[in-house]
């Protein structure tokens, strides 16, 4: 069953290839706009690039999870699987994972390329990638929670970021601090452990929360 579900999700994303490439292109566009705004100062850029990467990841996750359930809601698929006897939580978990795979994962793969552009050392680049790998699934699932909350609304473009951004803050703080610690040569394990703890806490509980939110949003 897992295979079929995964296959269905993959098909959904692959049928519309732009949905994979657009987040990636968006990411590169935002990244390359920053030097234009701040100026081509190498030292400054090198210092703030981790922050830029994280801001861009925030934008990407917010945009890609904004109308996450809209299509499924409009064509009735959502109601069908909420009332079906298969494990709804598991389907939601797979949906979160595949959303991450097709929006954040391509970006993470291309982080080494970004590091070359901005002259970031191997060690820093590695820590950026590891914080992204741990942190971005949490961001994606919180963003999906926001889109589930606003499912009943016709227009919710700016609302979801306003609701959701405060919830991002712990992840952002610990990621930024881990990156900062590596580049200043101090221990960074603790921040990584806390990020992992947040991931382990959020990912398994989120499907249950999502199921409850969706049932509230639909039964109006």
């Amino acid at each position: 069953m897992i295979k079929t579900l995964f296959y269905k999700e993959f098909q959904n994303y692959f049928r519309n290839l732009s949905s994979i490439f657009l987040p990636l292109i968006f990411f590169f566009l935002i990244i390359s706009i920053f030097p234009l705004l701040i100026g081509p100062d190498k030292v400054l850029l090198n210092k703030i690039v981790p922050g830029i990467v994280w801001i861009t990841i925030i934008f990407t996750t917010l945009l890609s999870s904004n109308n996450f359930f809209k299509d499924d809601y409009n064509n009735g698929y959502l109601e069908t699987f909420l009332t079906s006897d298969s494990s709804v939580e598991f389907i939601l978990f797979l949906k979160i994972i595949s959303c991450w795979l097709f929006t954040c994962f391509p970006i993470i793969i291309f982080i080494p390329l970004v590091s070359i552009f901005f002259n970031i050392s191997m060690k820093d680049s590695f820590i950026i990638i590891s914080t992204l790998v741990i942190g971005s699934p949490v961001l994606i699932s919180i963003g999906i929670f926001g889109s589930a909350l606003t499912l009943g609304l016709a227009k919710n473009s700016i609302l979801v970021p306003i609701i959701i951004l405060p919830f991002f803050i712990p992840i952002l703080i610990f990621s930024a601090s881990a990156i900062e610690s590596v580049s200043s040569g101090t221990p960074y394990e603790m921040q990584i452990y806390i990020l992992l703890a947040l991931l382990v806490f959020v990912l398994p509980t989120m499907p249950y929360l999502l199921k409850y939110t969706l049932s509230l949003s639909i039964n109006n």
Partner: protein
Amino acid sequence: MNISKIANLKFFFTKTKNLSKFLGYLTFFLMLGGIYWGLFVAPSDYLQGESYRIMYLHVPAAWLSLQVYMIMAFAGFISLVWKVKIMEIISIQCAPIGAYFTLIALVTGMVWGKPTWGTYWVWDARLTSELILLFLYIGIIALYSSFSDKRQAVKITSLLTIVGLVNIPIIHFSVEWWNTLHQGPSVTKFDQPSMHISMLLPLLYMFVVFNLYFVAVLIKRVQLGIYSREKKSKWMEEYLNG
């Protein structure tokens, strides 16, 4: 008298009309007394001089900003689980009051920060987490106001409030850990409060007065909430027409 009777919207609306007026006047006079006590009677601080006196507004507002959030989440939880109508209204009407308290805490803190730290704003842990709390409140109000079906809106915002309640300690811990410049808590140190009793008493008094104010405003707002929800119902028309 049982709970279901108090929870009845009609009962609440008709019985608390005079109570909120009474509480309002009471709060006004008690607040005048508290301001006199805090601004003129309490001794001045040996380190900060007179500028510390803004604490008598700042600290109760900051405490209330968190307390109101907890009340809001608690009422939201009850309204989600037991579908108590009055709790739905209480939960959502807490949000603007809490946002105001957060704003008061932030503004008074900035006014205090200028002579003490030399700048209105620093990105310090407590200021930042208070600011994030304000954003949480604003998000809740925005989410509520964008639904046209208000019962549905309350359900969704209650859920957001409860999730936010889980998140507040995490945010607070992370921000605290991120940067700390604010002076440590000086009232809740149980072994030996680092504040003299003659300064502490007016503070606790102001805290009680702020709580009274909160209850008075909440009752008024809940009455308005009941009115806007029930204005087409029969009992409301009968009540208003005499």
